[in-house]
């Protein structure tokens, strides 16, 4: 069975997939902030990326630096096949949970 993903881990993995070959730390953070509609700390994103890499769900490589970064390299991320499997499992689980219910739900408030 694939790795069980938390919500923020899914957000990071999906951001990497959307960004494709432009998926480096700052771009991933901006993508997540846009999708979630709120500010996200760099520490949260980098801690999640490290955890995902330790689990084998993403891989990374160093790219070149730019003048605005004082020449410091960008680290680009790619989703590994195990990460794809985990995302598919997460989506299937949500689909199972919602089966039979129509979104958006209407409450009695």
């Amino acid at each position, binding site marked *: 069975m694939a790795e069980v993903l938390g919500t923020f881990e899914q957000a990071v993995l999906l951001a990497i997939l959307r960004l494709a070959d432009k998926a*480096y*730390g700052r771009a991933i953070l901006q993508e997540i902030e846009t999708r979630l509609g709120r500010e996200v*700390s760099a*520490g949260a994103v980098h801690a999640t990326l490290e955890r995902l890499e330790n689990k084998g769900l993403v891989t990374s490589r160093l790219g070149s630096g730019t003048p605005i*970064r004082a020449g*410091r390299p960008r680290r680009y991320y790619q989703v590994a096949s195990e990460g794809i499997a985990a995302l598919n499992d997460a989506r299937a689980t949500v689909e199972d949970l919602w089966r039979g219910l129509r979104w958006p739900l209407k409450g009695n408030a």
Partner: protein
Amino acid sequence: MRTSPPRWAEALLRLFLKPEVFASVSGDLLEQYRDSVHPARGLLRADQWYVTQVLGFVLRGTRLWAVLFAAAYVARTAFDWLRPTTDFQTRSEVSTALAAGILLASGFWVAWRSGSFATGAAVGLATTAIAAVLSIAGVAVLLAIWHDPQTMAAIRGSGDLEESLVLPTFLILPGVAIAGVGGLLGATARRLVRIA
């Protein structure tokens, strides 16, 4: 006009990151600082933003140790209040050894990751400062639950309430020293492993 974040904040960030990721992570923060935060918010607020981001990394590196340290302190306090004694020596030896062990481990672990000799002291400061807040809050919760005459007498017998609330802040300086020793050991061990 300066267009880079405070150097001390970047130096603090280096203490809490693995060497192999420091360049890319600090580069990301620098890019965001120069590209969007500084133009939008100005120098002072951009610096505030950067320091907040760095403190986020510090918190992630120390919060577990701070929680453990505070839990040990609150547990010892609860024991003194609910199981009063006249002979505190054994309890003191156990709780002191536990606290020192947590601080040594925290400094060792984070310095092992960063490879920096200075990391331990920074970890000790952050851990004990955060733990002080948690410990004082924990003691307040204990007092809210237990404040019957018997417990109040036990509190007076163990050094009074004032000691329970103030002691966590007195532990900061020794915490810096002990975690500093742990950091020296951790950074040294990392270098030895690399050489081997």
